């Protein structure tokens, strides 16, 4: 798929399939937490309509000729759409030694993949906005259409690092090719956006810097896909930043710390499913087949991961420094 091509039925079906896979994965990760197979859950159920198109449109690879990703911890659907093996988040949830993203050291949803320029996802909700400046500078100086993509939630935009990204990416004559994405779910843990922010749209703040912006319904697949494609095209060709704000749902709360129970917000998958049924792309039988396929596959992966070994306690010192093993001093 590329930005200019209308989505064919097979594309729509592939997006739906990934959305369902991501949702089932997230729900199973929550279940793992509740069963005591992991210590903490955080993820992005409710953001699939935006995150899957985003993952589909990323130029995937390693080095300056590919997109650099500074994502936040609700990005499993982005990575699945890029081709991540669903076993990866399961291993991170279980903190196994086989976790290729952090070796059992970090929370689930804190993915890292140098082969895809995915910089390590961190718990601080703002630092990605300033590390993105650096890859943005490197890509500004490089002849490429690759860009830097940074994502965060609405609450994190109150941090100074968000403002830093706006300032640095729009320095006159030194503009940076950064796509700044805010997924606005109207809350930070238990604190509602409306009680803390007077700005109507977060994207409005970028207008003061002369930055192009857009505010979209991130629960709508077609609108998300088109808006992401348009924003990416602008950043890839103009080599200037763009701020895209997507209003999304948060279907299981902030994290396991707030219970990880289903909350009655709009479900983007249900909405897309109805759309696809009306277009005769989906029927009742295929809906059921897709859900069963992913449920069985993820159950099998969980069973497998539960047998995998935990990290060796002696490994705690490894990689404090590059390629280093064992204690330094």
């Amino acid at each position, binding site marked *: 798929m590329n930005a200019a091509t209308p989505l064919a039925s097979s594309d729509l079906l592939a997006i739906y399939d990934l959305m369902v896979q991501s949702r089932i994965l997230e729900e199973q990760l929550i279940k793992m937490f509740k069963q005591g197979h992991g210590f903490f859950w955080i993820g992005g159920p409710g953001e699939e309509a935006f995150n899957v198109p985003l993952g589909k449109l990323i130029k995937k690879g390693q080095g300056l000729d590919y997109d650099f990703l500074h994502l936040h911890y609700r990005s499993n659907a982005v990575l699945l759409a890029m081709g991540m093996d669903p076993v990866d988040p399961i291993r991170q949830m279980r903190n196994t030694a086989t976790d290729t993203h952090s070796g059992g050291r970090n929370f689930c949803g804190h993915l890292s993949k140098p082969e895809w320029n995915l910089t390590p996802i961190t718990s601080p909700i703002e*630092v990605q906005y300033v590390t993105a400046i650096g890859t943005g500078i490197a890509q500004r100086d490089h002849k490429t259409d690759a860009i830097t993509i940074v994502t965060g939630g609405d609450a994190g935009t109150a941090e100074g690092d968000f403002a830093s990204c706006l300032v640095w990416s729009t320095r006159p004559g030194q503009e940076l090719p950064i796509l700044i994405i805010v997924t606005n779910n109207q809350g930070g843990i238990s604190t509602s956006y409306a009680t803390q922010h007077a700005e109507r749209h977060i994207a409005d703040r970028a207008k003061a810097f002369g930055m192009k912006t857009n505010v979209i319904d991130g629960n709508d697949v077609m609108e998300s896909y088109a808006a992401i494609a348009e924003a990416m095209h602008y950043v890839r060709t103009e080599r200037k930043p763009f701020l895209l704000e997507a209003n999304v749902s948060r279907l299981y709360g902030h994290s396991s710390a707030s219970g990880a129970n289903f909350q009655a917000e709009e479900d983007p998958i249900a909405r897309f499913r109805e759309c696809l049924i009306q277009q005769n792309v989906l029927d009742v039988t295929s809906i059921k087949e897709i859900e069963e396929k992913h449920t069985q596959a993820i159950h099998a992966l969980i069973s497998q991961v539960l047998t995998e070994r935990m990290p060796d306690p002696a490994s705690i010192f490894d990689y404090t420094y590059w390629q280093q093993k064992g204690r330094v001093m």
Partner: protein
Amino acid sequence: MATYAQAVRMALHYAETHLGLSHVFGQDVGAPLGGVFTATQGLKTAWNTPLDERGIIGAAIGLAMAGKRCVAEIQFCDYIFNTIDLLKLAGNTCWSSNGGWCLPMTVMTPVGSGIRGSIYHSHSFDAMMTHIPGWKIVMPSNPKEAYGLMLACLQDQNPTMYLLPKALIYGKGDEAIPGEPSLDQEGSKQLREMIDKPVDPRLAAQWEPNWPTGLTDYTVPIGQGRIVREGADITVVSYGRTLPLCVKAAHRLAEQGIEAEVIDLRTLWPYDWELIATSILKTHAVLYVNEDTEVTNFGEHLIRRTVDELFYDLLAKPRLLAGEFIPGIGLAHTLEQASVPQLETIEKAISEVVAGKL
């Protein structure tokens, strides 16, 4: 005879022409100023940033992630404190990704007292920085080592913190940097004319540096200390501004028959324990000297390790002489003198430790 600032400048020039250094940046780092201490004048890769320390450190992390070698400057370490979580992030990126990412980046920041800098231009940062794993931390105390340690930092694959003791920044050394003009006064003048930007704005506007052509890859390995003065009665371990004071105190005490062995630690992490331990096994007494505030001071760690590993080899209690535990350095001369170790207090502390030997 180069100053410390000229040494840093020449090292950065060597690195941008030979080692792939592509970005040197920070507030006032590029033209026209070239750094408030002139350490980045004339560099082709130096540029100015917004007044935003978090942006500066974040940019360095991102550039390193993109495979670009950079030096980011925080103008005074007093202003680096709002970046602590980013320094933690840089230090944990390799570890948290289980070896997936490395961050070959260098942060450079002036530290310590000695320029009458008052509350926000006199902080030390060695105690705070050595609390952050994943970094290599250096603090040269003379121009030649300033050059060699900068080149070491710029060839390391990890985040490196380069602390410049600002009291020494215009001081000269007694050893030549390979490639600099001669060590005498004529050499100093010649070097100044070659690489110091003229103060006169009319001349400065047309100025281009004339770099010495014989600069080399002279490198001081990270993790290696140096015995600056040999002695048999006590080991004195220091770095930065207090190091030359310790040497001076040792020379004065030699007239009284006390022979102090002075070690310049040079690298704070990973530090040269073998050098320290070997010296203590010879002298059986140790004094650690630095000017950071004394509570949870890096020297306290060194004392703890000394007691853990060498207790039965000590003939006197190990001691730390550090800055007073106060919120800042007061501006008045009398206040600054009383806040951090000076020649007299160092001399007194050495004498007391030696006098206490069994």
